[in-house]
Structure formats: structure tokens, C-alpha cells
């Protein structure tokens, strides 16, 4: 699986959805609890072995599968 597929399968499982579009805004799909936000950040950090810093923690970076993929790929390439 590539980065996008890995992220997508995680998000689908967490949101209990069968499918969403890669550019869907997940924050508009439902209430995002702080627990889910934390899990999302930890998941990206651990899966891709990256360090998400304060400047990366914006709603925009996490709002869709596309944007999370971009963030993860940008961070991986820095290492």
C-alpha cells in the first residue's frame, strides 16, 4: 500500500465509513473529538516515523486524506 492508501484505510476504519473521497473534509463529516485528533497525529507519526511539529498541527493539514498524505510525504522527504 502507498502512503495514501494506508492513511485512507486508517481513516475509514476510525470514522466507520465504507468510503469517502480523498478530498472530503473529514471535519465536516462529523464531530472530531480530541481523542480522535490525538490518535490521528500519533498514527501518522508512528506509521511513517515522522515528527509532527506545532506548525504542522493545522486543521488544513488534517482535513482530508489528500492533505494528510501531502503532510506525511513532505515530512518523510525531510528525513
Amino acid at each position, binding site marked *: 500500500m502507498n502512503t495514501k492508501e494506508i492513511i485512507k484505510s486508517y481513516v475509514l476504519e476510525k470514522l*466507520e465509513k465504507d468510503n469517502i473521497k480523498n478530498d472530503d473534509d473529514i*471535519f465536516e463529516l*462529523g*464531530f*472530531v*473529538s*480530541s*481523542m480522535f*485528533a*490525538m490518535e490521528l*497525529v500519533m498514527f501518522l507519526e508512528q506509521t511513517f516515523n515522522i515528527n509532527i511539529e*506545532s*506548525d504542522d*498541527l*493545522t*486543521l488544513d493539514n*488534517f482535513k482530508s486524506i489528500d492533505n494528510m498524505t501531502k503532510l506525511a510525504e513532505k515530512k518523510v522527504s525531510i528525513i
Partner: protein
Amino acid sequence: MKQMTVKQQTKKIKCVVWDLDNTVWQGVLLEDKQVVLREKIKDMMNSLDERGILQSIASKNDWDKAMTKLEQLGIKDLFLYPQIGWNSKSESIKTISESLNIGLDTIAFIDDDPYERDEVVFTHKEVRCIDATETDNLLDRSDMNPEFITEESKRRRSMYLAEVDRKLAESDFKGPKDSFLKELEMKLIISDAKEEDLKRAEELTMRTNQLNTTGVTYSYDELDQLRKSDDFMLLVVELNDKYGSYGKIGLSLIEMKGDKWNIKLLLMSCRVMSRGVGTILINHIMMLAKQNKKRLFAQFVPNGRNRQMYITYKFAGFKDVSKSGDLIAMESDLANIQQFPDYVEVDIV
């Protein structure tokens, strides 16, 4: 009352873990014809319970026989997550610490057998091991005397028991997580702190590290002044569900100066970690600020364990505006305020 700032050298005990044979009772259950409770042990256990100190068991024993005996002795309900079986006691204590979500450094382990105490200390050096023959002064130890005994302390065990029921129901539940949350019939009450809330509020600032935005502790008197001041708003949050009450589990202090509001403190008990309370509280404050046409700021001080609160602010749309030392100042443009989730009824009092 003097302001309490620095945490004590030795942390207060939150849970006492008892061995059974020759510790809780005299004799060995599987060998002796009869075992009897050790003298004064029941009084000791009841006193701990009233102080809000939880109790559990780590015993190498037969589960059914031991539970039957505990029931006969009328003490079975005192213990949360009893570990009775043939695991090592260090494993049992780790399980208890994880199930209760408390640190190993807040657990005391009482056993008559020096081998068992050594085995536990070898793996978890932070657990305080006590020889069962030296428990006469147990209740006088300073680490067995909590700073506060509040309504919540006295009800702590029953609140944890309700949590056991919740977890069981959750693991039996087959549908999606949101539907389970709906099943809980949660009711969140956000209100201005009243005088009777202050002891608990003080306790919350002292006990909560993980879900705490600044880690600043406030004394009863300070909180009372803040509560009465026109420049501050002090909110307390209570959570109930069909299994019972969690009690007062959240607190927020907001400074109101001119057109600027500043969230100086926002915290909640770890017991409600996955219930969405933090996000609801932040969104409530955002709504209030917007209605009153104020700018909304928030403070955050990292303590190594509270990153979740930082992420909560960030995902609620707060942006860093400045940093001085450890203190990060953030502001929200109040553009996106999330509606409360439909699995919880929110009452603003």
C-alpha cells in the same frame, strides 16, 4: 490556607493492592481448613475506601475459591480489577495500573512474602511495597492521607465500578463507536463554579497532568477569589450517564479583559478521555466569546504528557501567536465552531 505549589516528594497513594493469604486473612486458603480475617483489617480497608483510595488484589490463588471467600467475608465489593491467578505479581500490578489508568508510582503493594515484594520491586521500582506484618500504622502514613477528601473521593470506588460496567458493555457492543456513545445517554452539565465546587476544583488542578493545558495549580482561596471576580469566569463540567455519575470532571478558567478573553486553564479528568468533553468545552467557550463579540486567546504550557490538549486547541482552530519561555499563546478566529455531537446532551446552567 497557604498556596500549594510544588508536588510532594512522595506522591500520594491512589491504590492499595493486597495479597490475600497471610495478609488479608490469617492462613492459606487452599491449604488450611479455615482462614480468618486479620485483626482490624476490615476497618483499615473501610477507612482507605472513605479516603478515596482504591483497593485491589494481587494473589496467587484459585479465582473461584478466593472470590467466594471474599464474598463470605463481606469485602468483595471493595476491590477493583482483582488479579487472582497464577501470574507474577509484577504483571498483576501492571494490569491493575493500566485498568485504573493510574501511575505505578501511586500504587502500594502489601504482601507478607519478601520474595513477592522483591519480585514486584525488581520490575517496578516505583511501587511502594509494604510488609504485611507492618501495617499497624498504615493509616497514619502521610502517603495514605490524601490532601483532599471530597464528595468525589468518597464516591471514587463506585465511579470506577460503573466504569467497569461501561467497559464491559462497550466490549460487548457490536455496532459503531458513535452508536455506543449514544447508548450511554451521556449528559454534560457546564456551569459557573459555586462555592461547593471549589474543593473539587482545587483537587482537579492538583491531580490532573495529562489533560491539563497549563499545569498551573490553584488553591481553594485563589479559586474562590477568581470565582467572585468580574474579570474571570470559572466553569465546572459534570458528566453523567446511564451507569452513574462521573462527578465533576472538567474545569476551565477564563480571564476577561476588555474585548479579550483568555483561557488560562482547561483541564479534565483522564476518566473521560474518550468522551469528547474537551472539545465540547472549548467549543462552548468559543460560542460564548463569539456571542459576546470578544477575541479569544488560550494559553498552553507543555509538560511532556499533555500534548493531547495542545492538539485539541489546534484542531479547534487555535493558532500560535507568541511564545515566551514554555508558555505558548494561541488565538482562535472563531470562524469554525463545531456543533455539539448528538450522542451527548449538553446543559448550560
